[in-house]
């Protein structure tokens, strides 16, 4: 069964304290891996898509990387405004053109000033 697991469930950082969020996946054939940011009471906001092992993408203080088994979202020198829940999702080749994604449970990040 295709599965996506995110860890940790919650993470508290001091402002400026860099860290990483993990997304491990067990799927039949990875077509793409997506990272989203979700603020409380709002819809998820798209951050990155990664397609193949070794690929990296960056946006401001965030950097996403992908291996054959997992993805990391690295947060460098975070600020309080980076506090949010970060969701990971995968799409498999078995989903065809439906665009279906399998979501992880999310990591809730709190950055204290």
């Amino acid at each position, binding site marked *: 069964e295709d599965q996506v697991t995110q860890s940790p469930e919650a993470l508290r950082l001091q402002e400026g304290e860099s860290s990483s969020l993990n997304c491990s996946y067990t799927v039949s054939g990875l077509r*793409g891996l997506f990272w989203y940011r979700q603020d409380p*009471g*709002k*819809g998820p906001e*798209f951050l990155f*898509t990664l397609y193949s092992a070794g690929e990296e993408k960056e946006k401001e203080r965030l950097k996403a990387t992908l291996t054959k088994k997992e993805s990391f979202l690295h947060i460098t020198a975070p600020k309080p405004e980076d506090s949010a829940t970060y969701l990971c999702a995968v799409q498999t080749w078995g989903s065809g053109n439906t*665009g279906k994604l399998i979501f*992880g449970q999310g990591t809730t990040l709190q950055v204290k000033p």
Partner: protein
Amino acid sequence: DVKVTQSSRYLVKRTGEKVFLECVQDMDHENMFWYRQDPGLGLRLIYFSYDVKMKEKGDIPEGYSVSREKKERFSLILESASTNQTSMYLCASSLPGTTDTQYFGPGTRLTVL
């Protein structure tokens, strides 16, 4: 920019009422999705549609139906609302192809009393 809008941010209904949640996207996307999000359970797919008048059940379709009469509009219907359908409902759309990125609306917080 892709824009996905949902008809209400907050909705309060009574048990047994028929409830309509509407979603509109402005990017000519073929695929549209309805999710519900509950604490500890993550995002769960209710229904999706890959073309006008086409629909497929997701992981938790019981108690829900959908309608897609026009490409830009995807409606979620609760035939007879129950208290266990109190949740955050999220709509998303995507364009099938290389990216398949899902773009989400702001969400509707539904409370069934």
